[in-house]
């Protein structure tokens, strides 16, 4: 089953769905003799359970180990010899993706290797334990010894009380130590199946050739039933949550989190405009109010596009000697103003142009295009939601911005985290 759907300019997406549930997206583009090949699985830390946090990410590491057909290390060695570029993987709260770019004559090779590790991985205890050590080390790098990492971990831990978004993707130290190869094996059998996966191929490829190759290597892999896993809904937050962290820093940091809906919600494009008005560029409201006035050295706003309701974060690095509390007062005042008087026509136009630029820039290379498609296809079941969301941002009006500011950025529903020097 296939369809050809316009992406942008001359670029088209060819979409296939195989009988075993595997999805395939192809964007031919012959501007360079290379292609990106990405495999996206619909599993992330959201699918974990308490006591086993970090398993999705730890398992991502295991995928680079041996299979029934290839010894440990062979996967990397073969791809590197073939001239692979950007071979990597990443795990988020909602998905796990395996990415690489290759010269155009390596399609058969990568399909063979990726399909093999989808079904033939060998998970043994010694390798699992060594990799756990590596992940503990990664955890030290990203969290324990990183002021921003500590703050990031804590803001989610404070803002969520029930939903799995409350724990960090990398997991907790004690959980990582507790898990063994049997846990990893079970996780693999539950989620690493064609019906949980989308393959995205962009670049110098022939559509029929890709479809045939993927069919050849993947069609024999059976679909598996999705494990029953009820994900707890996060109750509404009605009170301010606040925490102070003492860190090895010389300037204070402030992060404020507000709950926002999931990616498919109609308010998401409006929130995208809102966060751009707040902190997108140097003419944005918070930049002018905090950086231009000498209170902060930087300010940013970022709303997570997630499968389940997540957070919009406002992040501030203070200037030397300035206090987070002062910055917070200004932020709250700006939000209050925005929720009463709304943005100007100029602010709206500016935000739309910035989002427009970002949209095109996110489609600027084979790997970027593949990431865009993989992200939206995996989160929503249809990559066209990415295009639709962008188009909707271009129609947002001032009243809508006022309305979502009132709805989601209420002062009493915020979680605040302040990092102060020890």
């Amino acid at each position, binding site marked *: 089953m296939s369809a050809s759907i316009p992406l942008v*300019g*001359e*670029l088209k997406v060819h979409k296939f769905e195989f009988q075993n549930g595997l999805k395939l997206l192809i964007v031919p*583009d*012959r*501007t*360079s*003799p*290379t292609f990106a090949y990405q495999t996206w699985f619909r599993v992330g830390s959201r699918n974990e359970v308490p006591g086993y946090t970090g398993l999705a990410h730890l398992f991502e590491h295991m995928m680079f180990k041996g299979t029934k057909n290839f010894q440990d*290390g062979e996967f*990397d060695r073969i791809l*590197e*010899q073939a*001239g*692979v570029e950007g071979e990597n993987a990443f795990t988020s709260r909602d998905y796990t993706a395996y990415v690489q770019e290759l*010269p155009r004559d390596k399609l058969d090779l990568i399909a063979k290797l990726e399909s093999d590790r989808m079904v033939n991985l060998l998970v043994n205890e010694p390798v699992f334990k*060594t*990799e756990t*050590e*590596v*992940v503990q*080390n990664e955890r*030290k*790098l990203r969290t*324990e*010894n*990183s*002021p921003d990492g500590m703050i990031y971990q804590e803001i989610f831990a404070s803002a969520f009380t029930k939903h799995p978004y409350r724990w960090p993707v990398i997991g907790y130290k004690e959980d990582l130590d507790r898990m063994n190869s049997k846990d990893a094996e079970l996780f693999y059998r539950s989620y690493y199946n064609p019906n949980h996966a989308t393959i995205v191929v962009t670049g110098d490829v022939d559509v029929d050739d890709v479809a045939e190759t993927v069919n050849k290597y993947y069609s024999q892999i059976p679909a598996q039933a999705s494990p029953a896993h009820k994900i707890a809904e996060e109750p509404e937050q009605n009170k301010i949550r606040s925490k102070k962290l003492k*860190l*090895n*820093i*010389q*300037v204070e940091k402030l992060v404020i989190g507000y709950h926002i809906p999931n990616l498919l919600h109609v308010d998401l494009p409006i929130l995208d405009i809102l966060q751009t008005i707040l902190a*997108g*560029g*140097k*003419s*944005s409201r918070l*930049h*002018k109010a905090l*950086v*231009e006035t*000498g209170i902060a*050295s930087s300010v940013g706003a970022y709303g997570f596009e997630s499968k389940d309701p997540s957070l919009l974060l406002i992040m501030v*690095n203070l*200037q*030397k000697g300035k206090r987070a509390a002062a910055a917070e007062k200004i932020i709250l005042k700006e939000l209050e103003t925005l929720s009463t008087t709304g943005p100007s026509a*100029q602010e709206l*136009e*500016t935000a*739309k*142009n910035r*989002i*427009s*630029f970002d949209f*095109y*820039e996110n489609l*600027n*290379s084979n790997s970027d295009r593949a990431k865009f498609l993989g992200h939206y296809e995996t989160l929503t079941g249809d990559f066209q939601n990415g295009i639709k969301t962008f188009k909707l941002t271009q129609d947002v009006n001032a009243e809508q911005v006022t309305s979502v500011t009132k709805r989601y950025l209420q002062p009493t529903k915020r979680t605040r985290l302040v990092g102060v020097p*020890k």
Partner: protein
Amino acid sequence: MNKRLLHLLISLSIILTFFKQAEAMETSFETDNTLPIVYINLAVKAGTVSDPQNQLGITNFVGEMLLRGTKNKTKAQLDLELDQMGARLEVETRAEALILRGAVLSKKLDSFLNLVNEIVTEPSFLETEIVKLKAEIVSGILEELSHDQSLGARKFNEFLFQDHPYGKPILGKVKDIQNLRLEDILRHYQWLFTEEKLLVVGTGDASEDLIEDWAERLADLRPSSQTGTPIKVSVPAASKTRRVQIVDKPDRTQTQVFGGQVGVRMTDKSFFPLYLGNYAFGGGTFTSRMMLEIRVKRGWSYGANSGFRFGLQPRLWRFHFFPTSENTPESLKFSLAMVEQLKTTGLTKKEFDFSKQSLINGAGFMYDTPQKRVENKLLEKTLELPDNFMKSYAKNLKKVEIEDVNSSLKEFLNPDTLTLTVVGTAKTIKKPLAETLSMNPDEITVTPYTDD
């Protein structure tokens, strides 16, 4: 240009143009109509190395000041105009270049180019903005010091190069920034932005004629250099002894380990053999020796790599990994032994064959997108490399033999005089580190992490 590439470019209607105006600004623009966006980089062929002593950070400061107002527009007006266009204009400062990096929707290109012109040729350098920028940059330096990896890289650089210009931090030092005066800034601006030092490189949905015309207009508005001489950087001296530094930061459960020495030029005869040798040792792949020994076999560090930094003169070669505090002495000793072994026995035939094939097969990724070709051109022009140097990798690597690699490694590496920097908690790692390295603890330099 090989036939395949020529055919590809013709078939895609991509026009790659490089032209040098008579005695004027060099301009290179590659038309790419795939998306409605344009990237424009205006580079000055002078960077941090030209910061005068006691004015460290001034080149970056001047670059940032350009974005803070012109004679006719306040900073707020500039910011607003750029944001309204959906444009990005940022400053990137390197050791030997200052780059204004611009990106804009193609429908707004004309207005954007006019604005860049105004920014570069009519900056206001208002005292009020100087005061604000000083505060922001000082906070930026303190922020850099709070992140272990950026802290370690900065301190290693300073420790390796000592007083040589390659040791100068991009953002500068707090005291120097606070002491900058308007006349220093104006003088440095006039020195940096002369016609001969400027270079335009870009790509995107625009014609090269348009960019050429704009670059000509810009060049006409800037004076020629009084001296007419390009920047000169001396060759950094190699260390004669092993130097060890702990950048002391409390409560570290993990350290950042950097080790290295003065490197090579990209135009040196030994460059390609050493590039291949480094690739096998720690060049960023999962199967390099460092990754296999330090991460895969021992689980000591999430990452372990080695690489060169390049300049007009030999700059640096360094390795880097981040073990737990308790594993630091053992893993550091082990990594030094690995460097020693690389020097004495070189690569095996198997490693050589694998690395050579891998690099040749992957060489196309060095220039497979317009953005990468723009970056290559910037590097070639600012480091005085031959045209299309980055495209010559595969051809040059094909000529390299294992004997070239191993003799170059033997001559290049100096394991006994490597400079080492460890970001960690001195009270827990100093003694075991000294014991493992067979040093007197007093020989280890301890620098507080708060000291810029």
